[in-house]
């Protein structure tokens, strides 16, 4: 095995690579690190047309390493009993292809890698839902986890406080899809479609999505036959993600976004505060996104992080335009009123 990769510089930009082409795009646009997965249930973005074959990952690791970028492999689903061998094989391949770290959630997977591939660095996935210093320390103590990806539910002062009490690096999401449920604890997709986010790596799978026209010319977006949202003829129909649908409650008969409006997370303005709070790495969501999206977002955040490092004010106008439905949020990070 080669010498371990250098993860020491704070302000690391961790970028999505859904395909080999997206990986090369992200690296060329200035990613310090890219994250990706295999074409199977071992990662939480097990979508058709995404992810890497073994030869693709091998070539991609070589491409990234030749340009000084690091590659993380997401092994962040929960193997159902009887299928653990798939995760075992993925871990062996990760070690053989010299990825720089594996992102894990399941304790069995973490223990397996810590025991069988002790040279392989471990990051704790957001899917592990470690949101307290005690939970984080559990994974550090037992599996030697070097970095935790924090759930998107903490304010900046809370992140600062956690940093004081844990022995590992912190990575936070700064841009992209804004998940509302505790990651790794959500079976909504499984309930409506029979495909599981935790066990199969899918969330509101495209194969179960339909759009149906109403009599008035409006559109219904459906998942597994259930209406998740309705749109007037002049509205843009969104993707039917269960936790971003409109539902009626007894005293809200008109229907409302019961969980969250379809907004995207954008913490560009908070980058300096996050670095000040001790966040080591910034993660951009979006392995399902196009190359052009990756190029624009990574390029803009590269410039923003470099500006913050230089003590300047970053220019962020372009990033707002990329946000889903043009609406963005700072989620929980700015205020606990979000809760």
């Amino acid at each position: 095995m080669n010498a371990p990769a250098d993860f020491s510089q704070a302000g690391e930009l961790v970028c999505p690579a859904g395909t080999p082409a997206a990986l090369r795009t992200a690296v060329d646009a200035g990613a310090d690190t890219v994250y990706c997965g295999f074409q199977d249930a071992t990662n939480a973005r097990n979508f058709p047309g995404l992810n890497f074959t073994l030869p693709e990952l091998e070539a991609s690791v070589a491409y990234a390493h030749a340009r000084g970028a690091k590659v993380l492999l997401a092994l962040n689903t929960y193997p159902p009993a009887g299928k653990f061998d798939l995760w075992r094989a993925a871990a062996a391949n990760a070690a053989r292809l010299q990825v720089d770290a594996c992102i894990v959630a399941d304790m069995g997977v973490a223990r397996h890698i810590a025991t069988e591939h002790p040279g392989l660095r471990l990051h704790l996935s957001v899917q592990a839902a470690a949101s307290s210093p005690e939970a984080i320390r559990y994974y550090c103590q037992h599996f030697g986890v070097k970095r935790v990806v924090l759930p998107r539910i903490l304010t900046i002062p809370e992140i600062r406080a956690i940093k004081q009490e844990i022995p590992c690096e912190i990575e936070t999401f700064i841009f992209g899809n804004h998940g509302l449920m505790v990651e790794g604890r959500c079976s909504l997709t499984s309930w409506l479609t029979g495909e599981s986010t935790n066990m199969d790596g899918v969330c509101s799978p495209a194969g179960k999505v339909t759009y149906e026209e109403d009599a008035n010319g409006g559109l219904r977006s459906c998942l597994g036959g259930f209406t998740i949202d309705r749109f007037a003829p002049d509205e843009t129909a969104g993707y039917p993600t269960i936790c971003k649908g409109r539902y009626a409650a007894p005293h809200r008969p008109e229907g409302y976004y019961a969980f969250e409006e379809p907004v995207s997370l954008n913490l560009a303005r908070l980058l300096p505060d996050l670095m000040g709070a001790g966040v080591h790495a910034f993660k951009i969501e979006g392995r399902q996104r196009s190359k052009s999206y990756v190029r624009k977002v990574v390029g803009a955040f590269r410039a923003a992080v470099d500006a913050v490092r230089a003590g300047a004010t970053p220019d962020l106008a372009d990033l707002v335009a990329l946000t889903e439905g043009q609406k963005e949020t700072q989620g929980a990070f700015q205020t606990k009123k979000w809760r």
Partner: protein
Amino acid sequence: MELTLGPLAYHWTPERRADFYARIADEAPVSTVYLGEVICSKRAPFFEREIPRMIERLTRAGKRVVLSSLAEVMLKRERQATDGLMEIEEHEVEINNAAGLLARGGRAHRVGPFLNAYNEATIDWMAGQGATHVCLPAEMPRDAVAVAAQAAATLGVGVEVQVFGRAPLAVSARCYHARAHGRTKDNCKFICEDDPDGMPLSTGDGQPILRVNGIQTQSESYIELLQELSGMGALGITHARLMPQDVDMVAVAHVFDEVLGGRIDPDEGRARLSAICTGTSFSNGFWHGEAGYRHISRRADAA
């Protein structure tokens, strides 16, 4: 196989809780009762003082009492509550968050359904750290449950599966009860108390689909695994969990007990259960590896 009563997920008034557990103690054919607040740390002060009395009442009636910990641990009061619970030695504890695992160290404990014990490797790890009993995630299909249960049996670890009640589908840092009423978690005024069986959500077509219980999202229909019950023991499952709902839970427990004992067949059990749970439909899709909300009847491999 034994029947258990899982921890109450809802915010019932203290009086109602006391009456409920008194009746469970006297009349429900369950061997084990899980007590404690799993969903929202703000609720605990309302009934904490009553817990010793409930324990005493249940224990006197011959029930084994297990104290369950919070699923979401983030705030200081949640961390303290978890640490405090893990100090308890005179009763068993069921842990629902990794923060609890750290505090418990290698001492004996049960693993709750929120800890994601999905596979034999994880159960093996947990057993080595003191786990004596594991409640599997509700979404696990029969094939995976069977492998997990065999592994657990080898390790001497008990295995529990939810056979009745709304499916726990998600938890969040945000309170959706408060949100529905234009409030936030910090000024919720305990509006969730108004919905002792969860707040119903319907789709734009008026189809009931989910229930909100504070930070938790549950299924509209109840999981009901009566037809599957008789085959569970052979798979290595040691305990079947009934989740408290706003129905006659003593009657529910009797139905499951009679089906388990072979005194009535699952069809009759289901008819009785329907009469007890008026207006609520039943689901068993998770068990059969299909969409959870479905109800699969009479398959050759049903159990």
